[in-house]
């Protein structure tokens, strides 16, 4: 088996089928380059070949490059030469006098799109599976196969920038509208239709379809307007990334270079900047995350889980509706609650989510009907009797959760798995009165469920491997990245979040201003400031968590601030009731003013300047240190899980790669030194965890190597 199969048809069309013999996907790699070059040479020299088709023998067209190889790159020159080889290869196609047609079905990502862009004509299937995207930016790199040059030239500067800068996915219809593909066809017969297109292109009876650009669009691609477009784009990028992510700026630079000095210069820029990005820490952090997420999708060793034929969800609130929404594609879902008013609202949430997918083209209307018909609102536990997995998402109240567990056990089969969606209540304690505690575990979803990618699965010492396998397989099928953690106060995510948020309260007590704390952490790379986050999740929830396990680690100096419970008592619930650290009544241009009333709970309205970097570090170190405690105590089983959980669940700055990669980058020794400094000044809560001390002493890294 070869990775590129060449078939020469009698009509003069050569069909090049990409068919990676070593895996389910076609991946751009150096090995493929070599073979590709040989085949292209044959196409070039064979006089009988008049035109060529590029098609995939896999489910997807081409899923991108081998990102593992990026991860290994240490020197800028490595990435640079890879990009240069890629350009040379794609030039063979782009400059060929014989027309090439890209026949695209399934995903065409990164290098897949760039390969198609190098062809003379793009034919895609009008199928929900067909998706085009240049996701390089999300991995901290740039499209180094000519994407920054060929895409704007094909579709125009203005439509190209968002695709390059956000990695946005484009479905077939939209790709046609943009001019990214020349024509659509049905999946069956793609090869034949593409061959016909290739032959007609060679004969001159088919012309590539180019979208006509409006006058304004054309003006935007010339000076002086062009300069303005680039300045605006740069401003947008900086506002979004706070200058922490180099990739989008590098992409802009390549595009501009190409417009100003021509594509050759643009390609050259891609090579240089790609090399630099590949060797950067930010890229390693993002790539590490991507690779970890791929690993976490693979099944665990051990017993296979139970196939979930029916899912039960207890509680039709926002959380329950979210869990139902992401499960309907997998099986019928019975949502049980005490009133039809709540169930109706739940149904509305689900319906609106599905309708959004209809709008985006991810789902057709009939499919929406079919999925919605699988949602069964129930007032009676009896409806759950056939459930294989029941997830409770009732109010965070231990006694209530114990009771719904008992009531569920009374109707379900002995094999049914019971999962509690709690962010802090210990699972073992919920399972205390369970008839079969082996089937009980935690499935901690994050809100809003359809958007948040993490699922924290919590096991107690009694949880059976079968129950875990069932929950995890189901979570993965829902599209979640699952980390498996041990039961304990706050599990992993809530536990490391708690000292982080608490420190924000301490800062306010010391006199810091709300907006200053939030800005400091956003500048560090968190998507939301800690104080705003408390408003979002609710001060009631914060107070509840503080009460639940706030004093569990008091011996380490982590005692929780009294301010949150006091605020809650005074009627501040955060965003949900419009009364929080911020005001929600007079939002202007997306900015919400600080609610200065709250300072009464933090020693009065006088606020003082505090160094931003120190504020960010204090919070970040407490989170990171707690993560190390979790690793040491076995709450998480690997630094990888800890990093994925913190990034996907809590918004730990992705480019820093998570708490453990952050420590590796900073150096355990340096981290210890800084933390001990804080401990001396501010108290024992900053004392490094023993495992961190040990790692520093041995000069090791959490991810191995030195």
């Amino acid at each position, binding site marked *: 088996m070869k990775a590129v199969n060449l078939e020469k048809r009698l009509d003069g069309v050569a069909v090049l089928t990409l068919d990676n013999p070593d895996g389910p996907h076609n991946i751009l790699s150096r090995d493929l380059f070599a073979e590709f070059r040989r085949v292209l040479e044959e196409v070039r020299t064979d006089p009988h070949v008049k035109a060529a088709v590029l098609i995939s023998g896999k489910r997807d067209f081409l899923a991108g490059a081998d990102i593992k190889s990026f991860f290994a790159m240490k020197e800028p020159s490595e990435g640079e030469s890879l990009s240069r080889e890629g350009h040379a290869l794609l030039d063979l196609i782009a400059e060929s006098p014989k027309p090439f047609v890209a026949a695209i079905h399934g995903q065409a990502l990164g290098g897949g799109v760039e390969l198609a862009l190098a062809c003379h004509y793009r034919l895609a299937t009008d199928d929900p599976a067909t998706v085009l995207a240049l996701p390089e930016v999300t991995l901290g790199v740039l499209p180094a196969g000519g994407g920054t040059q060929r895409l704007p030239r094909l579709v125009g500067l203005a439509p190209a920038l968002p695709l390059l800068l956000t990695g946005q996915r484009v479905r077939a219809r939209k790709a046609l509208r943009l001019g990214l593909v020349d024509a659509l066809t049905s999946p069956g017969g793609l090869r034949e239709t593409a061959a016909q297109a290739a032959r007609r292109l060679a004969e001159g009876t088919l012309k590539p379809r180019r979208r006509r650009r409006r006058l304004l669009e054309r003006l935007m691609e010339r000076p002086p307007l062009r300069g303005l477009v680039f300045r605006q784009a740069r401003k947008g990028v900086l506002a979004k990334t706070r200058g922490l992510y180099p990739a989008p700026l590098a992409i802009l630079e390549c595009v501009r270079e190409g417009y100003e000095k021509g594509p050759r210069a643009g390609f050259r820029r891609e090579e240089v900047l790609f090399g630099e990005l590949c060797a950067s820490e930010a890229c390693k952090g993002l790539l590490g995350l991507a690779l970890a997420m791929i690993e976490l999708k693979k099944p665990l060793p051990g017993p296979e889980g139970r196939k979930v034929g029916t899912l039960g969800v207890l509680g039709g609130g926002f959380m329950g509706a979210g869990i139902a929404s992401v499960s309907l594609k997998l099986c*019928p879902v*019975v949502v049980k609650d005490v009133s*039809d008013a709540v*169930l*109706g*609202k739940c*149904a*509305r949430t689900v*319906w609106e989510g599905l309708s959004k997918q209809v709008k985006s083209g991810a789902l057709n209307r*009939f499919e929406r*009907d*079919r999925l*919605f*018909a*699988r*949602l*069964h*609102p129930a007032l009676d536990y009896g*409806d759950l009797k*056939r459930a294989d997995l029941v997830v409770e998402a009732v109010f965070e109240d231990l006694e209530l959760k114990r009771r719904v567990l008992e009531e569920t056990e009374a109707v379900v089969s002995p094999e049914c798995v019971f999962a509690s969606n709690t962010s802090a209540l210990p699972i073992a304690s919920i399972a205390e009165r369970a008839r079969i505690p082996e089937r009980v575990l935690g499935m901690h979803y994050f809100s809003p469920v359809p958007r948040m990618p993490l699922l924290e699965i919590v096991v107690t010492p009694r949880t059976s491997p079968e129950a875990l396998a069932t929950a995890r397989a189901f979570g993965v099928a829902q599209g979640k990245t699952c980390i498996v953690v041990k039961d304990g106060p706050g599990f992993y995510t809530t536990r490391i979040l708690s000292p982080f948020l608490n420190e924000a309260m301490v800062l306010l007590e010391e006199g810091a201003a709300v907006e200053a704390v939030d800005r400091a952490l956003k500048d560090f790379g968190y998507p939301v400031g800690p104080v705003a986050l408390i408003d979002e999740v609710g001060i009631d929830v914060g107070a509840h968590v503080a009460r639940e396990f706030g004093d569990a680690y008091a011996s380490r100096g982590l005692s929780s601030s009294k301010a949150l419970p006091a605020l809650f008592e005074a009627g501040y619930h955060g965003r949900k009731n419009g009364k929080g650290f911020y005001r929600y009544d007079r939002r202007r241009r997306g900015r919400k003013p600080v609610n200065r009333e709250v300072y009464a709970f933090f020693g009065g309205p006088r606020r003082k300047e505090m160094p931003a970097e120190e504020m960010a570090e204090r919070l970040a170190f407490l989170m990171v240190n707690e993560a190390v405690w979790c690793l040491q105590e076995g709450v998480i089983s690997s630094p990888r899980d800890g990093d994925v959980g913190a990034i996907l669940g809590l918004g730990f700055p992705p480019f820093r790669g998570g708490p453990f990669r952050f420590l590796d980058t900073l150096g355990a020794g340096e981290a210890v030194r800084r933390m001990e400094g804080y401990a001396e000044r501010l108290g024992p809560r900053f004392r490094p965890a023993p495992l961190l001390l040990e790692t520093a002493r041995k000069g090791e890294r959490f991810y191995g190597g030195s």
Partner: protein
Amino acid sequence: MASGRFPGRPVVVVDGCRTPFVRSGTDFADLSAYDLARSALSGLLHRTGLDPREIGLLVLGCVIQDADTSNVAREAGLAAGLPPACPAFTVTVACVSANVAFLNAAHAVASGQVDGAIAGGTETLSDAPIRLSRALRKRLMAAQKARGPLDRIRRFAGTRLRDLRPQIPAIADFSTGLTMGQNGERLAKRLGVTREEQDAYALASHHKAARAQRDGKLGAQIVPVTVPGSFRIVREDNGIRGDSTPEKMASLKPAFDKTFGTLTAANSSYLTDGASAVLLMAEEKARALGMRPRARLVSSALTAMDPLDELLLGPAFAVPKALEAAGIGLEEVGVVEIHEAFAAQMVANLKLLESEAFARERLGRTSAVGKVAPERLNAWGGSLSIGHPFGATGGRLIATCVQRMEEEGARYGLVAACAAGAIGNALVFERVEP
């Protein structure tokens, strides 16, 4: 005339359910027949827990067709999660559509073509297809072939103002031109059914239905419908008037013959939206799957008479045929479920079943068919009180009959209905001991 003992291997009803039946223009005003059928089917699958792959055929009744979903059974079946490989078709036989759908499915099971099938029906009378006039339709069709905008305008030349008036379909027999109500009025006058008899019958129907609703008997056959848009979860029939009184009934003006008539809105069935679904299987298959067979189909009759004078007398003709085929007498039947189109029609049919003259002259029998004991008849209400979504009613009758047979410990159950075109249907069931 088609009647007889049901041939082939034993066919049993495993379960039956329906959406709530609601007055048209209320809770389901924005839903289509396809939506309602989808709810009934997915509800049936959910409550039985049956693997949809065990269903080999779906047949639904529907009277007022929606052009978008002319084979509504197929669309609703797919949307409800029946496998694509399960064929589905829609039958239309007016108010016995679901009964005939059931017979079609039962034949397929009995003959061994499929092991499991779903039959039922669906109807929305909230959104009857209102058509443009023939003249305008003709011009619209022609305009599609027009060359250029000017030609298109030219094609509409000669359109008169009255051509623009939309046409609302009437519930009338094509052959006689009479609406059901007008024909009911004829029947009442011919057989001397009084206003008092009709009002008393209709009132009793509402009271029985209200009691059954209160006792959860109707709830047990209902699957909820979540209405997109309002996101109300509808679990109850909304046309039952448990608080109705003889005075209130008497206060209504006649609806069809304003001067000499006796049929009113209160003693006629009303426009209703709803759907029903019944799961039937080969008895051996049901047992093999661990599903409980509830009642076996013993015999059936499908009759047709003169659409002018015998339009609403389907039960009077079909019931004796089905009973004869089953080899039992009316007195042996513990549960009787007859479709109540009009109170007048019910009283008339009951009278004819008791009539020796009718038996002799029209049925060729020596004695009357018999008297239906009132406590055995429509004990949980009927179409007058619960409502009558044309294509779906048969499914409700079968589900109720089977459910009642079980609760009341009856050995035999009888379902009967009349339909436009003077079609009649009767089905005899025998309870299967668990």
